[in-house]
């Protein structure tokens, strides 16, 4: 079982970032969690740090200034080898079917998850790594 070490949480809603962080911390003790409050922040981070050891990214769609899909577009211009071992989940409270379709059509995205992410959902995501 490959261990999840580094997770990025991207959401403009602090509550969700806290909630998802709690769920992750309870299920994966010692995991490193980086929290970003906007698409701009995470994009700048990814461009700046040039990391390739990110295991999971949870990305909200509807964020002011730069939404989740814009972040994914920007990531698509980066070196793809960096995200070879990274699973990206799109998280949203949207009911718009178009968002769901778009998420499924984006190659970088592993899956779409409706908010809030429950323990069960997280468990099943983590179970996929085993």
């Amino acid at each position: 079982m490959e261990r999840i070490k580094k997770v990025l949480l991207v959401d403009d809603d602090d509550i969700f970032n806290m909630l998802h962080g709690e769920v992750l911390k309870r299920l994966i003790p010692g995991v490193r969690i980086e929290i970003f409050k906007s698409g701009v922040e995470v994009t700048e981070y990814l461009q700046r740090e040039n990391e390739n050891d990110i295991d999971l990214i949870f990305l909200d769609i509807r964020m002011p200034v730069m939404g989740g899909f814009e972040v994914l577009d920007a990531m698509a211009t980066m070196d793809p080898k960096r995200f070879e071992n990274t699973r990206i989940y799109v998280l949203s409270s949207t009911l718009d079917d178009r968002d769901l379709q778009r998420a499924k059509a984006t190659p970088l995205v592993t899956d779409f998850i409706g908010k809030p992410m429950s323990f069960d959902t997280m468990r099943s995501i983590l179970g996929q790594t085993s």
Partner: protein
Amino acid sequence: MSESREYEELLKQYRELQLRVTRFSAVEQELINTRDRLDHELVLHQRLHRYNSDALKEVDESAFFQLEAEAIVDVFELESSFVLYYSKKTSETLLFKEGTHESCSTEILLDEFQSLRRKINPAKTAIVSAEVLNQFGYLSHFEHGIFGYFSEDELQYEVYFAGLTGKTNAPLYNRPQERHLTIFGVFQQQFRAMLANRKRSEEISKQIAQIKAGQQELRKLSLIATRTKNGVIITDNHGRIEWINDAFTQISGYTLPDVLGKKPKDLLQGPKTDQSTRDILKKALWNKENVEVTVVNYDHEGREYYNQLEIISVFNEQGEHTNFIALQKDITAETLTQQEMIRMNTRFELIARHSKIGTWEYLPADGSIRWSDLMYEIYGVSKDLSTVIPEIWKNAMEPADYEQGVEDMNRIRNGQLSKSESTYTIKRQSDGMERVVETMMVAEHDTQNNLVRVVGSTKDITEEILLRKERDAASERMITLKTFYESVLNHSPSQKYVFDSEGRILFCSYPPKEGALWWDPTSHQSIFDKRNQTHSDRTARMIAAIEMALQQRHVIRVEDHGELSNGEQVELLQSILPYQDITGKLEHIIVTGVDISELKNIEIALNQKNEELQKTNAELDNFVYSISHDLRSPLLSIKGIVSLIIQSSEIDEKNRRYLEMVDGSASRLDGTIQEILEYSRNSRLDIAHESFNLATMVQEAFNDLKFSAQGNLELLLDIQTEPIIYSDKSRMSVLMKNIIGNSIKYRRKDIDAFVKLTLTRSQGKLIIAISDNGEGIDRKHLDQVFTMFFRGTTSSVGTGLGLYICKEIVSKLGGQLLVDSILGEGTTMTIILEE
């Protein structure tokens, strides 16, 4: 006795000697006489020879005869002589005389000589005594004479000659004696030979002259024979070819070397030569008669030709048959033409009979009239010998018509009229019915413009007239109808063109509006005629559309733009109908243009409105999503925090129950938000059909929903047909989620629950059934489940909108939604859609 015997012997010898001497003297005398006679004859002969030598030199026949007459007198020393020549052919008599002084007519002398000849016959040369001569008239003047006669049968003449001594002058002249007789005979023979020679040579020279003349004639003839186009054959008297002309070679292909010495019949006759014609020719040749026939002959190559043959037998002066001349004319073309004419005539008669046309002819030569059998039928009279045609006419026709007919006939006969056509009413004799006949008569003239005959035809047109009347009435009705429909068309608001199958205009209604015309209604040209035509873009587009309609054989509608003189655009909808008859043959092209300018403007306005609406709708959609998102976000964070708290162990049972109630309320609020959104979208958005896999959709919906459920739960798929369906995918997705969501929500937790999808097709309908083994619905609520905000139980977690939305969606898709349920056993929701 011996002496006496001796004496007797001697006497006997003497007497014998004496007898011998006597006999000798007689012989001697005889010899002397003979010598004298021979001397005399020699003299006579010498004289005669001299005369004859002179006579031979004479060219003139009269002089020759005269010399002969003189010779008789001189040679035989007689007093007078006559030479009488008589031609049996011409009865000409020539008389030559010498030593006579009395006049005597030639006729009398000939007569007397001829009867003298009969008396002294058979001797041809004879001494005639006075007794004989005294029996005659003129000759009785003579006392003695010598007479000769000969006839030449071949040359057909008789010659009488005589030497005579008169009674008074007798002493001066010799009397003809025995001794003259021989030499007179010799004279006669010589004369005869000389005369015959003369006559022969005359005859020969005459023949030579004739032959020369004849040769010239022949040359002329052969020139004609050579030049003529008719073939000429000359044969000998046995019918063997001696000569042919060039025309014969051209006709038959035979040259003179081919045919010389052969008989024409062996060369020319063949299998099709008529036997009776052969017999006629054979008989004529045998009898050496002239003959003229038409015979089938064969040329050198075996080609058959019709030969008009004339054979002439040729005889010479003597009446002997010498030659046949055969004249030939190749009349194949004429004969074939004639045969063709006969065939045509037969054909004509056949046609006339079948067309029920009676024919008649009048021959002015004998005033006779002949009718064809049909004429008798038309007039209803039986054909027998007693029928008199002019009387039939007179009886059957109206008096005025009859007079007109007679007058027409007379005018044709005297050349005032060459043809007349009339219609008469006649009374048919057989049944007394009135019939209308159409007659025509034509005069036929020869090359000298003499009337040869008048021919006529008669046809009973009673039925035709009835038909014609009906037809006229029908066509009148047609015209009325045409006018009616044209006025209907002219007053309709559309512009109509009717073309024939060739694209030529037949009809064009009055244009309802300026600018409606795309083709000049006065043009006589076909719309398909590419020559001398330059079409406007509009006309070219219309013609292209018409060609397409003809190709596809069905109506085509095209939009067309015209322009008013003020530049305003006219919009037309042109409908092109290729009008076919029942056999599928194109009869007309009907083009109807409807002015849709107003409609077009409305359509444009409508499209604009629609676009605006769609834009508004999209904005509204985004707004609704944003609102629902923003409404849900805090709700979902509440739910998240609640679940976080519940998960922690530092909470007592009472608070846990409170928190679960918070979570339930939040969930219900979230469900309400979702359902309101779905309801709003269903009522607002257009239906968009696409193909998708229903089984996959159901599977995904089930997978998404089963997360929230505990216990055993299974999806069963019973797909009897193609799982790809064509429908509104997003609505179908909402529908499936709602129904499956209900099955999961109201499952029985005490048993192994299942949700089952059954997909079938029947009679063009798609039947989707989703059944479960859940709680079921109380029968009394079944007819209310689709009502807005209806909830089956107070414990229900639903909003009362779910099935209402399902019903709305199915009805939007034009289908039916049915529910069947047994409380405590399960529910089946059935969706029936038109595919």
